[in-house]
């Protein structure tokens, strides 16, 4: 008998003669107090994310590239990691082509093994899209893809995230239902609610532990 069979047999034996408890999942419990009018969603998200030191900018589908370039210049970031094949990646490439003297663009277009040292030591910032956000908890939904792999939102010290205002949802339950996550999850899905932080030493809150030190969210109000 394998360990697995052994454990399962013990558990089954303990349940002999008992009736399974009915699944009383209460949808109202996890949604009712976490519903927002459309105009409340941005302020709610902003309140929670700014409380944990996220930098939030309201911009537009037209103006965000200009703002991004300005933010990079202000922070004196020498380069930015992007996903050139995505819609927003193309937009950045186009804007950069028309505006000389902007920070270098880098593409995450090869397996991490081929450029791990450069990613860790010489990639100060990245920009990714998001699948949306959750107003109730102030979280971005990230669903890493081939174009925007997992480490893109983790290793660079500054992470810029693009969020369309229309994709801010009320709560986590609604997100799971809407995207039908129960039917299939990607290899990795993430909720990101701010820059990395810790209170391990004397419960003093410090930012920039192991993930990005700065999370900058650009909300596209008209999209």
């Amino acid at each position: 008998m394998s360990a697995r069979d052994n454990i399962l047999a013990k558990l089954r034996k303990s349940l002999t003669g008992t009736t399974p408890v009915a699944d009383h999942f209460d949808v109202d419990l996890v949604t009712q107090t976490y519903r927002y009018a459309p105009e409340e969603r941005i302020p709610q998200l902003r309140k929670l994310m700014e409380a944990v030191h996220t930098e939030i900018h309201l911009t537009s589908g037209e103006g965000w590239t200009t703002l991004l370039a300005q933010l990079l210049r202000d922070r004196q970031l020498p380069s930015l990691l992007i996903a050139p094949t995505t819609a927003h990646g193309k937009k950045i490439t186009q804007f950069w082509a028309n505006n000389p003297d902007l920070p270098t663009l880098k593409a995450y277009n090869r397996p991490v093994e081929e450029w791990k040292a450069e990613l860790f030591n010489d990639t100060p910032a990245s920009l990714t899209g998001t699948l949306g956000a959750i107003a109730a908890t102030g979280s971005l939904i990230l669903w890493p893809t081939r174009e925007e792999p997992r480490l893109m939102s983790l290793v660079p010290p500054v992470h810029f995230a693009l969020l369309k205002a229309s994709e801010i949802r009320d709560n986590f339950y609604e997100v799971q239902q809407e995207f039908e996550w129960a039917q299939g999850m990607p290899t990795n899905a993430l909720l990101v609610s701010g820059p990395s932080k810790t209170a391990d030493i004397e419960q003093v809150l410090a930012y920039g532990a192991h993930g990005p030190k700065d999370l900058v969210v650009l909300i596209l109000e008209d999209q």
Partner: protein
Amino acid sequence: MTAIHKNAGKIASLFHDKLGVEYTKDVDQLIQIGRKVLRQKFFEADIGVSGVNFAVAETGTLLLVENEGNGRMSTTVPPVHIAVTGIEKVVENLRDVVPLLSLLTRSALGQPITTYVNMISGPRKADELDGPQEVHLVLLDNGRSQAFADSELRQTLNCIRCGACMNHCPVYTRIGGHAYGEVYPGPIGKIITPHMVGLAKVPDHPSASSLCGACGEVCPVKIPIPALLRRLREENVKAPDNPNQVMRGQGSKYSPKERFIWNAWARLNSSPRLYRLFAFLATRLRALTPSNVGPWPQNHSAPKPAARSLHDLARDHLKAQGDRR
């Protein structure tokens, strides 16, 4: 839980001694030193090991919560990820994590959510550019099926490891985690550890509590920790020949002498005739009470029965009021 057994000064000395960095007690600087040193470790590691907060049966998803990012680093950067978790962390459906996640982060830290909620459903796919090439999940029993077999002790397994019981425990907050000598400290440690290592190895765990009830009060999944502690105290003193064996190492504190005394005490208090005789003798023969009763009189005066029992006094009182019954 934070490292409550070390303050910033101790961590500063440790970093200075072991890492050769300049001594600093500045928390932000200490965190940045940790970041720099550990980044190199994440970069070099061949295997990342993690725990799991919830494992979802429906979608085959491991859900991990954290604020720091070291969890994401360990599970994403090294080519192999090994997750180790107890079998009680498995939940049936993905939707079940919605209320559990909310309870976990709010009870642990008072946060609506942690910085990262990391949901891992498999290794890197052929067309993906990063993530571990292998993901392994180790499901541990380690005494959990034993706890599961008893309908009262089973509640121990409802724990979501938020740490609220520790944060509110007057014992834990004063002595810290290492004092418990095992992996899980605090109130939850006192009720789960006996299943993991056997009650005989940690016979004092169930007694290291004032039963103030704070842990049961704050538990978000309503584990009746004080009741379970009392239950384990009972299991601790069960006679070895008791046919009802519910856990490994039970009965390790059984003492025939103590059992005899309590049995005699029970008989005395449940028989009015015996009790009256006892009270009569104790009050009349009080002069004979020994003054040397073990270590007790070192700091206290030796106990001596009163000249008249409370029953006796009450009878007189009622008589004086003319309320004869």
